[in-house]
């Protein structure tokens, strides 16, 4: 009976998290189009419903009812499997993210490592999609994605080592607790180098512009999912946006203080203490996602060799330097 109760609690949590996240994914596409449109002096979606607010619904219905085209010479089982791997890797990382104090599906001690592992598993979906499509564009996209994700995985992981050193834990709950009791209230200031490396690598890791080489429209049609249509295409899109949400929430949890507010802000404005933690978490998350859109609207795409040079020659040495500095500071203090 006890076990049943626990399982049902977990199932309810999963339903809540998945539905909320899928809702956010739908509206992330809407806000992306809106924000980028405004930044380019356009209007963005405006026709479906007031201010185009029903556009994601229309897109969802459209992707359900579109013809599901499978290339004749594709590797069928792998072709079917790739989007599933992609979305599975993206969604299972949601399990270890604490959205506010005590709300976490599975509170494991290796939270950060689990997220990093899952985000690298997502690359399999992309590579297999590129391979199975039997198309040169998709294949090139898959290859590029593999190279990019592998090289940026290194700097992404290394940039988080500083945070782990300071907090002394892999558990995301503990990291947030450690931040709220630290001097600055969040780790973005003492870990400024790591934060910078993390932002750049997270953008590259999720294949978002300006590092969207795997799906570079102007070179590779649509990149790795050029041959996908209908709902499988929607799965890839959803995986990309969930990846964005996960990377943003990792940034919020590890560098921006998660659901907590720095103690000096609370000291100055005591009434802010009444705001529930989930609000702070979501506000910080939205800011991070807005940042994704913002750089997408601003920066042109990197060339492939520039991307690799940036990853290996700048970000990895910077993150190693960050680890060194953090380690020495930790020893001294």
């Amino acid at each position, binding site marked *: 009976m006890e076990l049943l109760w626990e399982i049902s609690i977990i199932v309810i949590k999963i339903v809540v998290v998945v539905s909320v996240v899928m809702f956010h994914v739908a509206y992330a596409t809407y806000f992306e189009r809106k924000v980028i449109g405004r930044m380019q*002096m356009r*209007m963005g979606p*405006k026709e479906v419903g007031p201010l185009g607010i029903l556009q994601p619904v229309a897109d969802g219905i459209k992707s359900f009812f579109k013809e599901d085209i499978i290339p004749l010479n594709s590797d069928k089982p792998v072709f079917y499997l790739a989007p599933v791997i992609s979305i599975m890797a993206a969604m299972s990382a949601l399990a270890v993210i604490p959205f506010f104090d005590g709300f976490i599906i599975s509170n494991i001690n290796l939270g950060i490592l689990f997220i990093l592992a899952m985000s690298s598993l997502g690359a399999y979906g992309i590579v297999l999609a590129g391979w199975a499509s039997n198309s040169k564009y998709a294949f090139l996209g898959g290859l590029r994605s593999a190279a990019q994700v592998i090289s940026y995985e290194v700097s992404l992981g290394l940039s988080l080592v500083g945070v782990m050193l300071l907090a002394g834990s892999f558990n995301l709950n503990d990291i947030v607790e450690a931040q709220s009791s630290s001097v600055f209230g969040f780790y973005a200031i003492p870990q400024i180098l790591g934060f910078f490396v993390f932002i750049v690598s997270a953008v590259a890791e999720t294949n978002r512009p300006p590092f969207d080489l795997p799906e570079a429209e102007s070179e590779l049609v649509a990149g790795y999912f050029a041959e996908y249509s209908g709902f499988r295409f929607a799965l890839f899109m959803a995986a990309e946006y969930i990846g964005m949400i996960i990377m943003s929430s990792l940034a919020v949890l590890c560098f921006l203080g998660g659901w907590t507010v720095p103690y000096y802000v609370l000291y100055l404005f005591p009434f802010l203490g009444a705001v529930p933690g989930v609000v702070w978490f979501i506000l910080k998350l939205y800011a991070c996602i807005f940042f994704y859109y913002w*750089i997408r609207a601003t*920066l042109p795409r990197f060339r492939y060799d520039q991307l690799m040079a940036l990853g290996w020659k700048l970000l990895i040495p910077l993150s190693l330097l960050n680890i060194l500095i953090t380690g020495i500071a930790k020893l001294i203090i």
Partner: protein
Amino acid sequence: MEEYVKIVTRDRLYKDEMESLMTKFLFLEIVRGMRLTLKTMFKKPVTRRYPKEKRQAKPGFRGLHALVRNPETGNAKCVGCGLCAAMCPSKCIYIYTREGDNHEKVVERYEIEVLRCVYCSLCVEACPFQAIALTETYDYAAFSKQELFYTKDRLLKNWDDFMTEEKKKRYFESFWGPKTSFFRENESQATFKGKS
């Protein structure tokens, strides 16, 4: 070895080394770009939502064709001389005439294949009777080719729908008029007047 003279110079981007270093390390160029996009976000979009807000065409716009209706007779001004068809570079005007009961020339059919028209308005300039015009209407898309094959009735209807007297005056006087007014009749010359 010869000394080369450096003639290609590059403008200095930064005042001194310090500024260049700061720009590189603090990503000032990216920051500047991001400031620009953020500012643009709060500006008014330049989009015109076409089917909902239509622009008035500028004077002199060459749009939908129309045959001028003679207000006195209620019929087309066209006499079927065929100059417009002869002038048309894309050969999209078809004119069929016959002899009427009183031995006058009757324009039986006057057709324009709109899909082939290039809107050069040479037909308008060629017409000595100011009998054809291009109106300011530009949205007349159709679903079939047949709908865009305009017969005489349709062209006259276009005139009634889109050309008011004032517009007509402006068009023929400002844009297309002078070329017809050059051909003035000489008093001493015998000319064909027709039986009006």
